[in-house]
């Protein structure tokens, strides 16, 4: 095995009130993929920020090819060949794709002038490598789907021609298909001798991709760095959470009841085309598909964000018209959106305020907010969902991803919905919180709630769903029951592999 390209020895970092990293040692070798695991808050982000130069360590030393270095800022880090794809998308909405990729290191002419032509060419070339040829490099990023934005992020890191590439959950927003492509790229980079630090919450990826794995917990390395070939999922989970989880997808079989939600020939623009499906009490229906297949858009149509242009929605058998989220809420529909930070949370407001937001009207007494009632409500859900927060008055921006997601869930559960639409409910959430949310979903379904779960994570779809709907190009192309739903079947339907597709459509009675 080759020598470490970069090595951290005894790194410590303290933030007010938190020891984020405590004497962490970590190294990456040329031509390896080194997975970094840990729950949210374990210190992964801090570690990579120290690597890139975004943060400075309080103690310890960094060695680059055996020589001690200091990385005073990210610019310096980039010069040393250390690039990162951060978990938070960090794009400039009004600038073009090409410029987003090359900001900070534009291909230049003399005098610091930007060479636009070369920049766009190179951007196209990089995107080509990512198999994203359809992305117009001169259009602004605003309006791109999350998946495409993620590709721009990856292209951005690749554009640095980095020797050390840090990827913080690069696949969180990608579907199976995209993930495969990304893996191909990562492997290609590895062959070229790039050292990759790979952070993920998807354990299977570790085994598919990584050579070695390091687990962080509470700012320390758990045990030592392991060879992937010598460990197991169970062991990694135990290392991460400090206990054993019974099972990843604790699915309890449902007893579906009445039809609660029925959608007929629903249309909106080019993204929702003649969609038909039903949702029964007490069942969890998984909605699978590639990014851009129109799943979130469908949810938004049902929820009234972008009201349907034609078609029919029935709730409890009654045809209804849903023109806004408020009307959807009044009908007992709740929607936990995909983009937690932009669509779900008021980051600068506290847990209590976020939890009560959707049911504020019910907490009013003579027009004024009944604080005691609000407190009771928030407390109830904080306890029920085990939201870990120092107080109800904590700003949610300070919570971990999993707890933030629970706050969004709490907000919607407080509305006592009959239909709960969950859009990527566990994206970017650590294993522990994920299992908790899955258990919660089961419990809710048991109580008779109808759940529509959009997910790009196949194991989650397969593990949690009583039924699976597959969307492609704005419409539902397959409906599979739990027994039928295999990885192959779903992927085939999602990608439109012809034969499978035909079979599946034939075997399910979707079209009226």
């Amino acid at each position, binding site marked *: 095995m080759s020598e470490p390209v970069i090595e951290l020895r005894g790194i410590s970092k303290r933030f007010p009130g*938190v020891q984020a990293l405590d004497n962490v040692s970590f190294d990456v070798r040329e031509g390896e993929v080194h997975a970094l695991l840990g729950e949210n808050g374990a210190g992964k982000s801090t570690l990579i920020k120290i690597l890139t130069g975004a943060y400075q360590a309080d103690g310890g030393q960094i060695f680059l090819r055996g020589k001690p270095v200091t990385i005073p800022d990210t610019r310096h880090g980039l010069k040393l060949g250390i690039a990162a794809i951060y978990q938070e998308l960090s794009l400039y909405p009004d600038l073009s794709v090409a410029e987003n990729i090359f900001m900070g290191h534009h291909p230049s002419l003399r005098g610091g002038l930007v060479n636009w032509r070369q920049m766009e060419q190179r951007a196209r070339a990089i995107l080509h490598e990512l198999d994203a040829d359809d992305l117009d490099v001169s259009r602004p990023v605003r309006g791109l789907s999350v998946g495409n934005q993620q590709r721009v992020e990856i292209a951005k890191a690749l554009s640095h021609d980095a020797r050390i590439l840090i990827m913080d959950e690069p696949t969180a927003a990608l579907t199976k298909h995209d993930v495969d492509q990304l893996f191909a790229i990562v492997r290609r980079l590895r062959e070229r001798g790039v050292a990759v630090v790979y952070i993920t919450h998807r354990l299977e990826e570790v085994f598919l991709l990584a050579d070695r794995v390091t687990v962080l917990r509470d700012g320390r390395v758990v045990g030592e760095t392991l060879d992937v070939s010598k460990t197991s999922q169970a062991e990694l989970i135990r290392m991460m959470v400090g206990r054993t989880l019974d099972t990843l997808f604790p699915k309890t079989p449902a007893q579906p009841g009445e039809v609660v939600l029925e959608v007929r020939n629903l249309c909106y623009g080019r993204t929702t085309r003649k969609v038909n499906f039903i949702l029964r009490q007490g069942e969890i229906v998984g909605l699978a598909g590639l990014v851009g297949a129109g799943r979130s858009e469908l949810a938004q149509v049902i929820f009234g964000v972008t009201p349907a242009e034609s078609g029919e929605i029935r709730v409890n058998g009654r045809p209804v018209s849903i023109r806004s989220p408020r009307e959807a809420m009044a009908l007992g529909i709740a929607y936990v959106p995909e983009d937690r930070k932009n669509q779900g949370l008021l980051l600068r407001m506290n847990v209590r305020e976020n939890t009560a937001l959707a049911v504020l009207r019910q907490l009013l007494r003579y027009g004024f907010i009944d604080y005691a009632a609000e407190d009771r409500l928030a407390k109830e859900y904080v306890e029920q969902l085990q939201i870990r927060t120092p107080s109800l008055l904590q700003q949610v921006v300070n919570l971990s991803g999993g707890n933030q997601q629970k706050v969004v869930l709490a907000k919607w559960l407080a509305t006592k919905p009959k239909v709960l639409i969950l859009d990527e409910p566990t994206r970017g959430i650590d294993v522990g919180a994920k299992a908790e949310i899955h258990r919660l979903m089961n419990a809710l379904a048991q109580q008779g709630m109808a759940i529509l779960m959009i997910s790009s994570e196949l194991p989650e779809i397969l593990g949690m769903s009583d039924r699976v709907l597959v969307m492609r190009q704005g419409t539902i192309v397959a409906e599979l029951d739990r027994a039928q739903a295999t990885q192959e079947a779903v992927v085939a339907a999602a990608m439109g592999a012809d034969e499978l597709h035909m079979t599946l459509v034939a075997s399910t009675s979707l079209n009226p």
Partner: protein
Amino acid sequence: MTARTPTLSPARHVRVLRTQEGVLFIILLVIIVVLSLLSDRFLTANNLLNQTRLLTETALLALPMTLIIIGGGIDLSVGSTLAWSAVMLGFSWQLLGLPLPLAVLVCLLTGLLGGAVNGYLIAYVRVPPLIATLATLAIYRGFSFGISQARSARGFPEEFAFWGQGQIGPFPTQFVVLVVLIVAAHLLLSRTGFGRWVYAIGNNEVAARYSGIPVERVKFTLYALSGLMAGLAAFIFTSRVTTTRADAATGLELDVIAAVVLGGTSIFGGSGSVVGTMLGLAIITLLRNGLLLTGVKGDATFMVIGVVLIIAVLINDLVRKR
């Protein structure tokens, strides 16, 4: 963030002095103490009550402006709306011969209309607030000149002066009105669902919409409210100065915004309070008043206020970051 056991009790009282309002209050106290040492005429009930007459119109506009800025918007047209409303008061009374109470109603409705147009443009047509109100700033001012043909209405009956010059007990009439409205605005913002919605929209409009908040209606209401307050301010102003001028309150929007931002309301929306705004306004007004009483000239006062504005915000930042 590491997981901690939830402690669910709010421990608010300890932090009061660390809040924006706490810091501003201390700054205000310091200013009052210094000024009262410099001039014996400053810290008298008479002087302070008198100041409330002078600041009422600004304060009335600052109340809705606080809400609007918290909600992520801005209203630059308030001064023009005030002038237009005042002109309509004079116009409908003097030229159309309406009875005075009806003319006052016209004045309030004019303000409401001006605000509603802003609200409609911003909430439903989705013109960015700054641009929409920059345009209506010119338009409403133009209406004031056009309708009045730049002539002022005057000769209001004496009883009309009650609202701008009269007293209720020892208090100036408009001060009483103002206090009632401050309390109302404070309760509206901090205690009602509507107020919470305003914060939510300023914090994250998309999330607010996804949470079933009628974002458009809230925004529309805010601007309409701002217009209505401008109408009310116009009425009180007219009563105070006994005439209606097309160029009344020119540039008042800057004074109003200065008070709001000094009061700690984030110009980017999402945070702020009515109490803060009123403290900000009190700081500016008392500083101007006190400096003048101690014999500092207007141009120098101007400079001092600029410096205080910057320093107050700086101190506030420093104290709260700690």
